[in-house]
């Protein structure tokens, strides 16, 4: 068993979650505030990536990002970014695929906050951005946590999209989920169990620590 895929998975999950967070917060904020008529359309669209089987979604992404395609070609020529069979592509695909897991919880958290919080902040001369950062987000911690945990865990386990876009290249796009999948496919149940256990254990410990900190159980250590 190799550690490469596991480290790659953690990198992918971390990068995806971080990017998703940065993207989802403004989107969720906009959705929670807007009275625009297109709001329900955007809300529905955000969930769309979930509806297709991951492999199929991956297939369509493959078509879209491929250098054979105008868009992929443009990216390649002008920005030098290759999205197929590269780590960058995996990240982008995972971000698209896990978008609803980050956006929806944050949006519902924001829309449950009483208006007076942001109003009070505005009357104190603070901008929307400061208000969001210092007042709103800290008060929806459970929702942020939900978004982060769901996105992180989902990216860890996802392999349909990743396999299609990434192509299972060791050290580059061969994440743990694909490695396990391969071992299972090869009837190497022992190795598959090994990977699974490590993945489960790592995730369990990560999540446990997150929840312990969140629950204040680790106060003693964090003071």
């Amino acid at each position: 068993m190799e550690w490469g895929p596991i480290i790659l998975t953690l990198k992918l999950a971390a990068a995806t979650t971080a990017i998703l967070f940065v993207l989802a917060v403004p989107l969720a904020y906009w959705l929670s505030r807007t009275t625009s008529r297109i709001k329900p359309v955007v809300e529905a669209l955000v969930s769309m990536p979930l509806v297709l089987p991951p492999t199929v979604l991956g297939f369509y992404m493959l078509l879209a990002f491929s250098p054979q395609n105008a868009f992929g070609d443009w990216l390649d020529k002008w920005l030098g970014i290759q999205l197929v069979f590269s780590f960058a592509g995996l990240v982008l695909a995972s971000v698209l695929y896990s978008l609803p897991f980050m956006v929806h919880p944050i949006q519902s958290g924001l829309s449950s906050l009483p208006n007076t919080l942001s109003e009070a902040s505005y009357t104190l001369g603070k901008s929307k951005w400061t208000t969001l950062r210092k007042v709103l987000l800290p008060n929806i911690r459970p929702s942020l946590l939900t978004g982060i945990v769901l996105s992180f865990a989902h990216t860890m386990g996802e392999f349909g999209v990743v396999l299609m876009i990434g192509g299972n290249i060791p050290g580059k796009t061969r994440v743990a989920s694909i490695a396990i999948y391969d071992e299972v496919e090869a009837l190497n149940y022992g190795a598959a169990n090994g990977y699974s256990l490590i993945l489960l254990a790592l995730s369990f410990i990560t999540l446990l620590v997150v929840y312990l900190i969140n629950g204040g159980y680790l106060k003693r250590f964090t003071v």
Partner: protein
Amino acid sequence: MIELNVHKTLQSAQGSMELHVELTVEKGQFITLYGESGAGKTSTLRMLSGLMPPDKGSITVNGTVWFDRERKTNLNPRHRNIGYVFQDYALFPNMTVSQNLEFALDRKQDKTVVEDLIATMELQQLRHRKPGTLSGGQKQRVALARALVRQPGVLLLDEPLSALDSAMRQKLQQYILEAHKKYGLTTILISHDIGEIIKLSDKVYEMQNGKIVRQGAPPDMFGLGKTSAKFRFTGEVIRIQKEDVVYVVTIRIGNDAVKVIADQSEVSHLQPGDKVAVASKAFNPVIQKI
């Protein structure tokens, strides 16, 4: 100077309410909005502070247009330089008392103002507590302190002392008055406490059903204009006791109670809870500081 002339229709399931407020407040003036529950006092402050857009009209403060429907001007609340004590406090649950105050600081402002306010509002013990664990009155004091941190040009106080005991209340009334004078604030207070209104404000506006129905100096507004050397008090009957041939009526006037001798005919139409006036023609009172 605040010049406010706004219209707003407050929609609701059952009919709607027309709010139309016209108000001119001189710079440095301290005015009070007074009136029954649901009259539109809070809504007026919300429009002035930019939290609720009026349907029509304009708001001009010290020559700057804050809102003008015609000219499509609507200054962001954050640029209106106001201090607002919300009726429901609106403290930030994620911050401690100190942090709530520090959050209000302007970029270049000195931190000492926060310390001063914490001391004035007697919040020293509570400075590291989150609002969730504060009592009602404690929250209210934090809210007041927070609104004062920026020493804003316009101070909006929505029943800022309603949850406080009378000692604290008196103390903070004094403080508000001093701050108002010291920083040359223009202050709009919402209060139901007549003593407080008389003590603090230069002018009172009475609202009813979304309109200002009366305005004037506080003593006039509350029927204190016709004062004279005569003693004439309004009070409330607490108890009526028969003693021998006469009746002793206990009347509460302010925080005091007096006993007045009355005869059968006088008490026949009185009962505890009645509002009464007590007057006397010949009286030569002595004042004594307490």
